[in-house]
């Protein structure tokens, strides 16, 4: 009974989040961005476009949650929405799940649009959707944690920089050690391997390790994000 009510609350929160994001132009922006990426990919030689496509998918649509979540949470905090969570039936985890799903949905739509309309060979859509979903959730959760420690949006951007360096820079290692499975235990590398693998092939073992690493990372981050969110955003003084 409780689970059912929880699902109903998530569904309602999700609907209002999606309507809000639509009104704020998120869908339009990513439609525009996707077409610009398609235009760029169309101008590249095929052998270069094959490498550029997964990198584009990984670096922009997959991590859009990190960019937007700071603004969303700060606006809702300014409007007093977040503080009211302590007295409404909507629980913190349900509120955050709704944010995660709504932003993952835009990521998936943008990635599918770019992939379907670009002239690429065979694509493993199952791996692609799983990879993009887990990557989007991972970066959105990082964004939630950064937001809880930021007083204003400019502070959020600055605090994002070290995280991006820590998470994205190690991905360069894949250029030098493309087949080293140990690298897959690092979440952002696991993400890139999945996304790249969706276009260029990935072994079952590698896919399994990457998905497992990302699921565990997301679960741990989700627990941590709830604690930080409640401490700093709902009851805290930031």
């Amino acid at each position, binding site marked *: 009974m409780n689970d059912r009510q929880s699902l109903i609350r998530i569904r309602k929160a999700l609907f209002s989040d999606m309507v809000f994001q639509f009104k*704020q*132009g*998120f869908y339009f*922006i990513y439609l*525009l*961005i996707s077409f*610009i990426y398609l*235009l*760029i990919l169309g*101008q*590249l*030689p095929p*052998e*270069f476009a094959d*490498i550029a496509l997964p990198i584009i998918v990984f670096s922009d649509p997959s991590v859009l949650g990190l*960019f*937007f979540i*700071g*603004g*969303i949470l*700060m*606006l809702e905090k*300014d409007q007093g929405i977040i503080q009211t969570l302590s007295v409404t039936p909507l629980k913190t985890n349900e509120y955050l799940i709704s944010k995660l799903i709504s932003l993952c949905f835009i990521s998936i739509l943008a990635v599918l649009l770019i992939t379907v309309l670009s002239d690429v060979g065979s694509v493993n859509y199952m791996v692609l959707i799983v990879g993009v979903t887990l990557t989007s959730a991972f970066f959105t959760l990082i964004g939630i944690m950064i937001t809880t420690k930021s007083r*204003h*949006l*400019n*502070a959020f*951007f*600055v*605090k994002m920089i070290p995280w991006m360096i820590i998470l994205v820079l190690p991905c360069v290692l894949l250029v030098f050690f493309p087949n080293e499975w140990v690298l897959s235990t690092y979440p952002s590398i696991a993400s890139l391997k999945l996304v790249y693998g969706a276009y260029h092939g990935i072994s079952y073992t590698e896919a399994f390790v990457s998905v497992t690493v990302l699921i565990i990372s997301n679960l741990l981050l989700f627990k941590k994000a709830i604690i930080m969110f409640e401490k700093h955003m709902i009851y805290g003084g930031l």
Partner: protein
Amino acid sequence: MNFLRIMVSDLKMIMRDPIMALLFFVPLMIGIIFKLLIHFLLPFALEFVDFSLPLEPYLLSMTLLMTPYMLGVVMGFMMLDDKDGNIIDLVLVTPYGRRGYLLNRILFISIFTFLYSWINYLILNLVDLNILSLLYISILLSVFAASIGLLFFRIASDKIIGLTYAKILNLVIIFVFADFIKAEWFLYVAVLFPTFWITKLITDPDVVANNIFSGIVVLVWFFILYINGIGYKKRGSYGNH
């Protein structure tokens, strides 16, 4: 003199907040980071793709344009905070006024963009430009930075809309590489944007038409946004000063 005093006080305010201070120095780091990236990654990229044009002028243009982008967005978000905190309404009842507020903000980012453009040009050392061309490009970049700040002030009603515009602004940088895109319609769109013309000033600084049109496009953007910014009236505010 009054402006100078306010600018010094703004600078002190920014330096007091470590986050804002860092953001103001990031454009300087951009030059160094891009220098390293170009040094190490360009030869790697050239192994895969045979570009039809020399890349250096375009990379210089993109790096120089990062400064007005970053400072414009930082100032834009500062002004959005002022808007949300109703500080602009308070400014209206001071001798400073809306015009003074906007001019001060604009001058602030323009001066820093001008300085950083020269420093980043020297750090990158990718293309030889004569001093007059560099001066003209730096001035246009400064005006462009002011336009970006004004764009936020004028049309972003809240922080999320601000983020959405920041994302759109990132797309405008693609017009730097318009020469590489074969679609003809793309060129017709690109000519409407300052990023295209500032690049033209770097690739062909001696072409008179480039100098004239770049000035016109950058100034038209600026004046449209400035006039709109002066006329900006928040619901419930006391009107123009």
